[in-house]
């Protein structure tokens, strides 16, 4: 290492004298590049191996009937329809709850809240909330949503829990997006005789939309994988029906995976692997959607 550094110093000095330097010289720059490339490749490689192994395990079970079947005591007949439907319900409901609340809170904090001790306190606590373990949210939700609010072990209670979990992330992402809108544009709109809400609604929000969408979808794809809080609010391990209303009992993909993996039979482990692959694909699809929407919005913005 010291060798290469001192050598590179010599080479650098030489480079000031000669226009070119030999291409074989190993410099500090090269060491850094190799180190960083390793840092990038190692986790990627691990992920690829993990995903490959899961895929290998899951392969025999990955077919359409797996997606459209109810769970069963017979591993070969079991499917993930209720879990998939439950996850879809959770996803939509969580988005409906978290987006208006999170964006609204962010707009208030960013545009209306007077800077002061109270605002600071709220801001600090929002960052703190983002770091609270999700099982704590589950406990809270069990007491508040399931029991006190009388929602029972419903898909609505699950969605409320996940929305609560996402709020700090959505608020922070939205605030960051709002902050990227330059003051000069707000002033331009105000100078044109617009009320503050009109400036917000017609200039600031449209401009920060790509950032908001990215933040929301990324947090939603995290919610799709949440397990602990859903166990707390009573998502069921065995559900042989698709939720029909917000009051239905439900299960979700991660719960189903957890349920199957904890069984002794190897056949169920294959089911778990297959469900895992489906869950991963779902998350990838969500992220791809986020990118697509953002590109669309940006293109529309730039014409």
């Amino acid at each position, binding site marked *: 290492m010291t060798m290469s550094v001192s050598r590179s110093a010599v080479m650098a000095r030489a480079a000031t004298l000669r226009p070119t330097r030999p291409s074989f010289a190993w410099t500090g720059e090269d060491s850094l590049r190799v180190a960083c490339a390793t840092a990038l490749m190692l986790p990627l490689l691990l992920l690829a191996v993990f995903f490959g192994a899961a895929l290998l395990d899951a392969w025999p079970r990955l077919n359409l009937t797996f997606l459209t079947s109810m769970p069963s005591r017979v591993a070969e007949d079991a499917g993930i329809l209720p879990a998939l439907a439950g996850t879809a319900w959770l996803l939509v409901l969580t988005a409906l709850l978290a987006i208006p609340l999170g964006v609204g809170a962010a707009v208030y904090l960013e545009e209306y809240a007077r800077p002061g001790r109270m605002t600071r306190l709220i801001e600090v606590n929002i960052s703190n909330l983002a770091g609270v373990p999700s099982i704590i949210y589950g406990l809270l939700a069990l007491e508040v949503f399931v029991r006190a609010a009388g929602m029972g072990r419903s898909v609505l209670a699950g969605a409320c829990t996940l929305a609560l979990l996402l709020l700090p992330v959505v608020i922070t992402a939205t605030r960051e997006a709002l902050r990227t809108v330059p003051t000069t544009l707000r002033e331009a709109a105000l*100078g*044109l005789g617009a*009320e503050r809400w009109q400036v917000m609604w017609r200039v600031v929000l449209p401009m920060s939309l790509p950032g908001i969408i990215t933040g929301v979808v990324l947090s939603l794809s995290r919610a799709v994988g949440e397990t602990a809080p859903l166990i707390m609010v009573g998502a069921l391990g065995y559900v042989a029906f698709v939720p029909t209303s917000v009051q239905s009992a439900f299960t979700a993909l991660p719960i189903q995976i957890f349920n199957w993996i904890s069984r002794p039979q190897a056949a169920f482990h294959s089911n778990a692997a297959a469900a895992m692959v489906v869950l991963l694909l779902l998350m990838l699809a969500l992220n791809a959607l986020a990118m697509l929407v953002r590109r669309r919005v940006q293109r529309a913005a730039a014409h």
Partner: protein
Amino acid sequence: MTSMMSIPIPTTQARNESSPVEEKMQVAGLKAFFGANAALKGITLPLLRNRVTAIIGPSGCGKSTLVRCLNRLHELTPGASVQGRVLLDGEDIYAPGVNPVMVRRRVGMVFQRPNPFPTMSIRENVLAGPRLQGVVPDEPEALVERALRQAALWEEVKDRLDLSGVSLSGGQQQRLCIARALALRPEVLLMDEPCSALDPVATARIEELIHELRPHYTIVIVTHNMQQAARVADYTAFFLMGELIEYSATDTLFMKPTDRRTEDYITGRFG
């Protein structure tokens, strides 16, 4: 110059022609603060109808703060406050009960850096004023054409009104911003160093435009460029450290300044 509004450019000598001189706005004992700091320390200044008034002075003298007080934009800066009066057609825009939004609809503003809305096309930018206010103009196409012609931009953009406003050059963007302000038919047009981000050609274009707009508006232009003030303004006010040092007809101010500090500034001894 192919604008509909073409009028002969007034020369320095021929400035005291036409309509009788009357006060469109009157600044009276105006103080502006950032927190406890006074950026303006009691300004009294007339702004005459159909005339161009230039505000000159070194950086930090309160030029920009003054024009931002004229459309009640200053008070939106956190910690900023205003004392004193600003009359618009004899009525105090700082009187209790006056809606600042209504003031801004009568007093348009062009900013230092061109700031078209990037999410909007050229057409939408011109119509931004009414749209933002939730008003649908009767004949939007006619309004767009009229405003763009007034801003001397029509010929350059008439075939690409649907392109983004930020696809234009800096000088064109600034004229688009002027068109956007004019589309609201303001009575007063405030220009806060409108050419400071532009090259000399674009600057000349904007100055030409100011001459054309002069018969129809009351124009206040902040500039750090004394030549520009001499070229475009009928009256010039010299500010220093938040105080109005001297105000007079532009020719008088530049040829025979009465205050020593004005003379020092315009001869380049400081600032």
